[in-house]
């Protein structure tokens, strides 16, 4: 799966950065062969931490735009251009992919309800008028990326990301994207128990300075 995803991205002329968050299998080698630059965490830190590492790598290497893209095959490389076009046309600093403005393939009802609840929660807590709160497919300008400092290493990073966009005051736009669910991506996706630990993580972070 990972080789195909990276090959798709590279075919469209984009650089691909894969953050290896302590994989025990051959994922980094496959990604490297497919044309990705691999940044290796010395220990497993979590998805949020990997995302921040990827963003910082992009910034350090002069990226004009940074796009976050899941490696489990649920995003379409062809839609990277859709997000970047949305950024440039609207002169925004963040383009957030929305599956509810675009399309979903094989999205189970339980997951749809969970995502709707998460979106409602995000609209209330961050004030952002978004239709999809937990979509990992997003693009940002260099200026936007430099305002993101994710501290939530685990699953709560998606909500934290939106909170930081709201706090930055920079313009954002939503763009329609397609999310294709497979057995593989559903197994890796969030569940109700994750939602509870996300809420707990976000609450605990508010107690810290």
């Amino acid at each position, binding site marked *: 799966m990972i080789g195909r995803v990276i090959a798709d991205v590279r075919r469209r002329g984009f650089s691909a950065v894969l953050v290896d968050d302590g994989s025990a299998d051959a994922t980094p080698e496959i990604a490297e062969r497919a044309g990705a630059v691999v940044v290796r*965490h010395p220990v497993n830190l979590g998805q949020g931490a990997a995302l921040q590492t990827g963003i910082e790598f992009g910034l350090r290497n002069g990226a004009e735009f940074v796009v976050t893209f899941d490696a489990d095959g649920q995003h379409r490389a062809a839609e990277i251009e859709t997000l970047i076009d949305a950024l440039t046309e609207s002169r925004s600093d963040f383009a957030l992919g929305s599956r509810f403005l675009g399309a979903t393939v094989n999205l189970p009802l339980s997951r749809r309800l969970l995502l709707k609840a998460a979106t409602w929660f995000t609209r209330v807590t961050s004030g952002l008028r978004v239709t999809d709160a937990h979509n990992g497919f997003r693009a940002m300008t260099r200026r936007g990326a430099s305002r993101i400092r994710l501290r939530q290493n685990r699953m709560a990073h998606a909500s934290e990301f939106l909170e930081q966009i709201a706090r930055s005051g920079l313009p954002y736009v939503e763009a329609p994207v397609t999310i294709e669910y497979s057995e593989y991506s559903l197994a890796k996706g969030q569940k109700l128990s994750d939602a509870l630990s996300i809420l707990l993580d976000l609450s605990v972070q508010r107690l810290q300075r």
Partner: protein
Amino acid sequence: MIAQLILTGLLGGILLYAWGQYRRAPVIGLVSMLAALTGLYFVWFPAQASRLAALVGIGRGVDLILYVWVVISLIVLLNLHLKLRAQMELITVLARQLALANASSQSTRT
């Protein structure tokens, strides 16, 4: 009297600990200080504790003090959790710098 002195010593220790934590985690520090001060008050004025306990339907004043102690323990536990999170953040920053430095030295070599 002996028990009162021992409890005063323990609660005084908690009070100092909470004072020390106030700058790092203001909410936790403040709540801990309030809980410790309440505990101290009830240790020295047990009749007040009994009256308040009867008012809130707990029964004996000593039970109320015990509950206060449990609350303090839970707050200390939460504070410990916050400290672990802060340490994890430091580890993350270090690990990230290491990963980025290794990646850039590799790309320089190739």
